[in-house]
């Protein structure tokens, strides 16, 4: 998996470089993101703009990551493409996550 992260102020932005989060990489994806997010209490944003496809295993991995980070450091999502957005909407997980149009809007909203 190609997972990069950058600190932006107090927040950690994790960028997924891969185009697919599917059954064959879901566990590797979860582990790679977890390793990128250091301890702390800043915001954590998962940038999914490069992801063209996510299946139920990928969704399960994103939910697992949110639970790992806990309620006080709620995982936020940004840059959902139509195919990815559809999975969140159909399963109603869009109501569980804070979803931003892009990483930039996620920070603009904070000001």
């Amino acid at each position, binding site marked *: 998996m190609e997972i990069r992260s950058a600190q932006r102020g107090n927040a950690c932005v994790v960028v997924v470089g891969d185009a*697919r989060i*599917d*059954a*064959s990489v879901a566990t590797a994806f979860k582990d790679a993101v977890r390793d990128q997010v250091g301890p702390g209490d800043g915001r954590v944003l998962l940038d999914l703009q490069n992801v063209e496809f996510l*299946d*139920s295993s990928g*969704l399960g991995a994103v939910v697992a990551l949110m639970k790992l980070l806990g309620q006080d450091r709620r995982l936020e999502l940004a840059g959902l493409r139509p195919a990815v957005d559809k*999975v969140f909407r159909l399963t*109603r997980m869009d109501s569980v996550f804070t979803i931003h149009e892009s990483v930039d809007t996620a920070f603009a909203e904070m000001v």
Partner: protein
Amino acid sequence: MNQAELARAEPEVRDYRLKSTPKAVRATLRTLRADLERLGISDDDLNSIELVVAEVLNNVTEHAYPPMHPGRIEMQLVDDGHNLTVTVGDFGIEMPGGTPPEGRAPPGDCAFDDLPEGGFGWFLIRTISSDLRYERSEDRNELSFQIVLGPRKPLR
């Protein structure tokens, strides 16, 4: 009648054969998407189709065959102009109870720690597809379903 509709006067049929491995599933999904794109199916429908087919093929790969001993999967797509009918066959073990799982709706309001990390697959299959059928005959599983197709992209 426009070009796209004329082209569907005869159903378009596509057959696929693959091994039940994650790698083969990925490759098949890529081919399938390209094939359906050529038939003018819209991006929104392509997203739905790729998702449902991925869920079904993943289930066969993970549950019908032992992961260490992959087997054969046969898939046929029929585009009649209005619906896409997908039939997936395998020679693995029978579905438990002889019927596909219900796929319960994810809970609307549930405690943070109780949020489900799995079990979305059959819910997605049942939500997107219609006319889901499963049949076990001798040593073969056959699952079929339909997806209603929306307006097409103009053919180039």
